[in-house]
């Protein structure tokens, strides 16, 4: 598929897009706090691949390469034009939802906000490992850092999330332990 893309085969590239666009888009969305420019950034990463497919020598390195390029583009875009975190705090019209749904949406908004508040490298590490299900080794490769460094970023990221979501996760823990008991 990569070889076909290198030969300017649009059909093969379309297949590659259908396979990797979603994870790239999700990661960029998380890094850019749900900003409307997410699509532009994800698109730019794929355009870079199309323009210069020779940068990737092995097909198995493709996802990691796309993630790295897209995350760098997202970070660059954020540094040039910082975005607030309002974009992801989507709470539906309270008249249309029940109390439980409203509470669920409020938790979602708080979790989104806590992730958005993380420093960019911690956010990227948490996104790659927790949301994209990558191993520490793969995430370290995407971020071009050592496994120890990503473990450190994850530890700090989790600590920050625990602090900002203290009420929520403690409640969840109590709930889980009472179910177990």
């Amino acid at each position: 598929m990569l070889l076909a893309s290198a030969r300017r085969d649009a059909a093969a590239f379309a297949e590659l897009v259908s396979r990797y666009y979603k994870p790239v888009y999700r990661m960029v969305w998380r890094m850019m706090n749900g900003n409307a420019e997410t699509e532009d950034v994800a698109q730019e990463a794929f355009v870079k691949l199309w323009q210069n497919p020779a940068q990737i020598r092995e097909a198995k390195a493709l996802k990691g390469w796309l993630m790295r390029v897209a995350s760098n583009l997202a970070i660059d875009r954020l540094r040039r034009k910082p975005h607030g975190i309002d974009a992801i705090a989507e709470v539906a019209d309270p008249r249309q939802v029940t109390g439980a749904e409203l509470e669920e949406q409020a938790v979602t908004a708080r979790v989104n906000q806590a992730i958005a508040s993380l420093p960019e490298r911690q956010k990227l590490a948490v996104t790659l490992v927790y949301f994209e299900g990558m191993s520490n080794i793969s995430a370290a490769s995407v971020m071009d850092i050592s496994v120890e460094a990503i473990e450190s970023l994850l530890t700090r990221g989790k600590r920050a999330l625990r602090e900002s979501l203290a009420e929520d996760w403690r409640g969840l823990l109590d709930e889980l332990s009472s179910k177990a008991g």
Partner: protein
Amino acid sequence: MEKYDETQMDAALAKLLKRATDPAVPEGAEARLMLAIQSVGQQSNVVPFQPRPKMQGWTIGLPLAAALALGIYLGSKDTFDAYLPEAITDGVADMSDSMPSTGLDDAESYAEGDVT
């Protein structure tokens, strides 16, 4: 003192993170990407080699041969000496010596004391 251990807290946090928004890809995003790709070219990271214009052999050889011929011609004529500095032309080849030195005349000055 925390009543939950690290593993429990990690598990709870992971569960909580699952409640984060799962962003949906906007409709038509992939099609827009394919359109964008068709509008841009593809480039190679190999810079095309531009060969230098090849010089004809005779364009170098001809002036060199002419300079050599002129040098030989002028060197064979004594008239050219007039154009050269004196340090080059004056007495360079004068090796004639009317009184050949044998070294015997100088021996006395090297001897210690009086030899007479």
